[in-house]
């Protein structure tokens, strides 16, 4: 059994619980054991990276150091923001021995750069390439899907390997389920991100534009990888409709949920019943 380190972050224990559920269920099917980093802390994606450069690096540094100490060679960080902080830190440390030394002093932990980080897209493509693909059934064939990357799964030099303006990493995974990725324009547009609470009107505008473009392209659902994008697109749909901007009714799934459905997993186990916009209708046999 393959063993991969797991960094859930705060989202996966809170608003993004279905991402955690679906990732774990899918890993089980694929025969991969996820081992949570013991005593992990905040990745720093909240306020730390705006307030203190050292803290912004020290927080993820400690998580990386713990993972290495616990013998993890690869760590999955499903939340796009956590991944960006962790991998961004690993890249910076790789470039600067001085930063590495300062972080060691600051945190009291040793780290040697021996941890490879995986985001949700890379992880699912890894599972598919290692036997999961053969276990999928064609139940989703013909379903039209808009792959949505947002900012953190497309951007960041040396953090994301995909093309920043025209990423294609999700498409292979979507095709593996039998579903069909649509050609659309807003795959890397901003959903409103962290303005969800402070400037909700901005989020309504931006998320509305994304939903409208996906619908115009004929998508029956949007697949996302980031808990923040997911909550903006899923939870705010009602508010967008109520504001008279549109009449959206578009399920938003995590990539792991979509692939989980194709793997024949129970929709409730994947967390599809936790969505604001009904997603249970996508379960094979319920349409």
């Amino acid at each position, binding site marked *: 059994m393959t063993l991969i380190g797991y960094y859930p972050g705060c989202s996966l224990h809170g608003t993004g619980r279905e991402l955690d559920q679906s990732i774990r269920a899918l890993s089980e099917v694929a025969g991969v054991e996820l081992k949570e980093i013991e005593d992990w802390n905040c990745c720093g994606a909240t306020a730390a990276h705006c307030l203190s450069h050292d803290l912004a690096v020290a927080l993820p540094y400690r998580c990386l150091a713990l993972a290495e100490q616990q013998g993890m060679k690869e760590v999955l960080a499903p939340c796009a923001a956590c991944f960006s902080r962790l991998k961004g830190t690993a890249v910076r440390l790789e470039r600067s021995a001085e930063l590495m030394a300062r972080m060691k002093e600051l945190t009291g932990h040793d780290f040697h750069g021996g941890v490879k980080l995986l985001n949700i897209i890379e992880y699912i493509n890894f599972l598919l390439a290692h036997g999961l693909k053969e276990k999928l059934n064609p139940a989703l064939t013909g379903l039209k899907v808009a792959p949505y990357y947002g900012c953190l799964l497309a951007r960041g030099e040396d953090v994301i390997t995909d*093309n*920043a*303006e*025209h*990423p294609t990493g999700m498409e292979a995974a979507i095709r593996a389920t039998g579903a069909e990725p649509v*050609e659309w*324009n807003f795959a890397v547009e901003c959903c409103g991100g962290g303005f969800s609470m402070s400037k909700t009107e901005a989020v309504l505008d931006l998320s509305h534009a994304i939903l409208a473009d996906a619908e*115009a*392209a004929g998508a029956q659902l949007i697949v996302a990888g980031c808990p923040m994008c997911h909550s903006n697109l899923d939870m705010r749909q009602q508010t967008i409709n109520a504001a008279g901007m549109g009449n959206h009714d578009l399920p938003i799934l995590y990539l792991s949920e979509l692939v989980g459905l194709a793997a024949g997993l129970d929709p409730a186990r994947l967390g599809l019943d936790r969505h604001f916009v009904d997603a249970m209708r996508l379960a094979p046999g319920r349409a």
Partner: protein
Amino acid sequence: MARVGVFICHCGENIGRSVDCAAVAAAAAKMPGVVVGVDYKYMCSDPGQQMIKQAIQEKKLTGVIVGACSPRMHETTFRRAAAEAGLNPYLLEMANLREHCSWVHQDREAATAKAIDLVRVMVEKVKRNRRLFPIRVPVEPTALVIGGGIAGIQAALDIANGGKKVILVEKSPSLGGHMARLSETFPTLDCSQCILTPRMVEAASHPNITLMTYCEVEAVEGFVGNFDVTVRKKARFVDPTKCTGCGSCYQKCPAKKIPSEFDARLGNRTAIYTPFPQAVPNKPVIDAEHCIMLTKGKCGACAKVCPRGAINYKDQDEHVKIKVGAIVLATGFELWDHSAYGEYGAGRLKDVIDGFQFERLASASGPTGGEIRRPSDGTAPQTVVFIKCCGSRDEKIGKSYCSKICCMYIAKHAMLYKHKVHGGRAVVFYMDIRAAGKGYDEFVRRAIEEDGVEYVRGRVSRVYRRADGKLIVRGADTLAGQPVTIEADMVVLADAIVPRQGAESLAQMLGVAYDTNGFYSEAHPKLRPVETATAGVFLAGACQAPKDIPDTVAQAGAAAAKVLGLFANPELEREPVVARVNQVTCVHCRACINACPYHAIEDFDITDSKGNVLRTVARVNEGLCQGCGTCVAVCRSNSIDLDGFTDEQIYAEIETLE
């Protein structure tokens, strides 16, 4: 016994300011072997040179040191003076007291001490100089011009009009290059074809020019004055001696849907084709990749209709060898592939086109007959957005350099569009407007002020296609400090100018240097802009750097003048600074042969009187050797020395410093 004269120049105040020239001259006069040590305000002036000449004759000097500027500046001047006084010019050396000393030091005392050292070093060297004589090589007075665009045509015509023979090699079936594809030209809007096609005809009919279209240079050997070139004549499948260019064949060809390279893939051509109706020579070739007869073995329509029986399906590539004395590289440019820009549609949006595609849309001979029609649905676009610097000045995705011509051709495109689509809206996104050239800025102002083209300073962040077919262009107006969104019908990208594919392999074949972007390097960026570091190879046009038509024509003329200068004498004189192999000690390990960047070292058999090979050694071809010294460094048996820079001289220079 050495009798060296040392002459110290003040170079006005250039050297005199921080070096005590009189003290240097006095110190030099006491050096062993020195018989004269003097200083003078301007040694390169006529009285200065007279001083040297007089000393050579009166003091019977065996060597001269001029302590002055860089030898790059005045070595030739002083060596000529020495020769006039009867001294072998290679017995004169310069000590660089300006660039290597006075210009870079302030401390007068230390600078003076250093100047004395520099002179002492050269005195030790010149004592070991031996007389050298220029190397003479015969010159084959025929030039090869590679590339049949405006650069190659102009260079060929200028050489031919100077009375020398030219072989003009072009890889496509016709002369003309990119210029033949242009609609109108900035800044005067004269029709490109009207000014170019007469020159194409002139080149083709010139008695001194041999035209080799649909040919490629395969191999180049030899050296300045004596290049041996192998040219591959690609199979045309049409006998040009029989063909009259009547055109029956391409009218009947059933393979009609091949994207036309000439029309930037906006139009189609047949498998047997001439690139455009005004092609020179106006004789078709068969594109073997798409011909039904050649790929499937049946059809033969062209052979049936050809009234002259010129079609030959069995034609094959042929290699011909030619001997030339000089080569002009005029291989031109192409456009960078903008599909790397995901934000501009990654090359997938039909109505996002490049500059050449716009040229073909605007051209009277183009696929739309000169009407601006967008590719997706053939309608006249009511709003066109032009995006400059697509791949230029963008180290991240594209190229770091400015492509130079885009500011002008985009202004022209926008202007032509406004002339052709009345009431249409043209918006240009720019980083800077670089319109340096005669009449250029006026032209851009005319586009803005008279034709109402809107210029927006800022970058475009995204172009996408809305469901109704509109292209949504989102960018920043950095002067207004706000984002802008434009609903456009067509977008034109000013892609970066890059060298032609294959330019690098041609350069390697010729030993010509190229920069990180693949543009050919000139020998000196200011003073030798048309020569390459390889003697006898010259540059014309955009293969050296992005260039507009006037600059290209000027450079082509300059390259032609250099070729004619080279051909003015039947023999060529070369600097005798070449490597020499000691055949007695050479063990023929071939290290030098492999190391020589100019392929100047060859195997040489030493034979007895009956012609039996006794030993094989390395030998330097004096015509090819550039005197770089690489072979000297790699020689394991210490058998190679560089004339003028022998090991003995170098060691003497170093030792005297102690």
